[in-house]
């Protein structure tokens, strides 16, 4: 029984994951009538123009760039300040450091979306509603919990002696961090960076509330909106092209770093 059940389960799961995603990619090369008349088959010819339509006519090119800018700037702020905090919290215990570690980690225990109304009101009051800056600030603030948590685990595995040696040589605490600890932490920093990059690229719920105008839309918002629009225009081919454009960067990142990402997911989960 088990001898058959095992491969059967694997095949079932494999098909269930691959087929829907592959179907989108295949359909992105079809014309709309072809998707309707022949939903299962291969495209008769590759309709690359779907991508051009999605990129320029449906404005996804602009949203793609917005997503790129927002994710990149968020990471450029998040990773250094998260690393600085995690470093202090692991290497420099002081009264209250335990409490602060718990305060940061606590953010992983409840859904971000619970604070969406006060966050929206706060951003409006600060003039940051519907700005990329506001979205970036929110992304950084809400990614700190996970980032600090994983990096704390990473820093506590580093040799403390290395920092002490540098400090004895007369390095200040800050330059010890930037010149000695930061470079040797690259593997850990890379993992949290990739992990956050994927999450931020995909983020939808916060952006839905914090962004309202077309010029600031991210890819996730743009595609969700496109679905609503396309239901009337019904250019399904272009919609599938847009979806493929959203999937590809994440898939490539994931495929290159899959083992690291898996270990980051486990580190975030198991040590908790």
């Amino acid at each position: 029984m088990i001898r058959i059940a095992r491969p059967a389960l694997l095949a079932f799961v494999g098909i269930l994951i691959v087929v829907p995603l592959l179907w989108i990619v295949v359909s992105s090369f079809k014309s709309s009538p072809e998707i309707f008349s022949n939903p299962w088959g291969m495209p008769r010819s590759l309709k690359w123009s779907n991508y051009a339509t999605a990129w320029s006519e449906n404005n996804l090119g602009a949203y793609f760039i917005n997503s790129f800018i927002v994710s990149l700037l968020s990471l450029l702020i998040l990773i250094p300040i998260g690393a600085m905090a995690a470093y202090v919290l692991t290497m420099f215990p002081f009264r209250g450091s335990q409490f602060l570690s718990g305060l940061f980690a606590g953010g992983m225990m409840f859904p971000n979306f619970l604070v969406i109304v006060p966050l929206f009101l706060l951003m409006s009051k600060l003039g940051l509603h519907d700005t990329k800056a506001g979205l970036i600030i929110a992304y950084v603030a809400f990614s700190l919990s996970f980032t600090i948590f994983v990096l704390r685990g990473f820093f506590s595995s580093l040799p403390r002696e290395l920092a002490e040696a540098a400090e004895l040589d007369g390095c200040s605490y800050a330059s010890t961090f930037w010149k000695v600890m930061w470079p040797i932490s690259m593997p850990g920093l890379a993992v949290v960076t990739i992990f956050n990059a994927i999450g931020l690229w995909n983020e939808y719920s916060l952006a839905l509330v914090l962004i309202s105008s077309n010029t600031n839309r991210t890819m996730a918002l743009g595609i969700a909106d496109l679905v609503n629009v396309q239901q009337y225009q019904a250019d399904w081919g272009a919609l599938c092209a847009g979806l493929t454009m959203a999937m590809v960067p994440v898939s490539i990142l994931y495929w290159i770093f899959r083992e690291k990402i898996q270990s980051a997911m486990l580190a975030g989960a198991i040590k908790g």
Partner: protein
Amino acid sequence: MRRAERTRFIITFLSPALLLYTVFVIYPLGQSLYISLFNWRGVSKRRSFIWLENFQKVLHDEVFWKSLKNNLWILLIGGFLVMAIGLALAQSLQRRTRGGNFVQNIMLFPQIMSLVVVAVVWQFVLNPSIGLVNSGLALLGLKNLQHAWLGEVTTALPSVIGVYIWCGVGFFALLFSAGLQNIDKELKEASQLDGASGSQQFTRITWPLLWPIRKVATIYTVINGIQVFALVYLMTRGGPDHGTDTLLSYLYFHGFENYQFGYATAIAVLTFLLTTFVSLSILLIYRKSPMESAR
């Protein structure tokens, strides 16, 4: 001298993160309590202090209870199936085969895809006219089983739960795989020599030793089950007839479609209390390892 420098260093290194976190995460969380006490409509300044009236109204709101019930269905049925399938999958991945490696590599794809992509993909798959499910049923000659999956009251919630499972199984399989790898191989071999059957091995060795992983998995199941928003909002907008609304999608509906900030925040506060209560109960249930008491 060094001590003052140390203090200065701690403050400079901690403050950027702490400042952002306090202003944009902790402060809004605290402010929720305050906002929930107001009758606050629209972006205008017009608001009146009404004490706990919002909570009173929420607790008498049928749709709130319906949303909570939907959340619980997702959490219990979806959560149970995600764990069961995840564990079965992890077991199947124990023996290294080429197919197993392939599945191991791709099983997290649904999790790392944007929920927007997931929602649209499944809207396609479940689409009544061009969807894979209905055309598959037609191919098999089972036309009478066809449904407008996301549009009918009876099938919408189960469909959403199905997609929820699709997204989550990979991560739980990963989690259980790590747990299974930590179980001592010698222990299993010894029990085999003692004549333990496969199922005995599972119930007596594997299951108890998975205790720490089960604890993590249960906590994740609860948090994930309560925070369902984007999936539902994108696939069904909470419909038909609030049949798939969750606490958070109902919160969004009141906050940003009706602009009743006070009412929406009252839902948030109740959801927060519920999350805290359930998480604490789980920690309490899993307080003591069964291995310790056996020893």
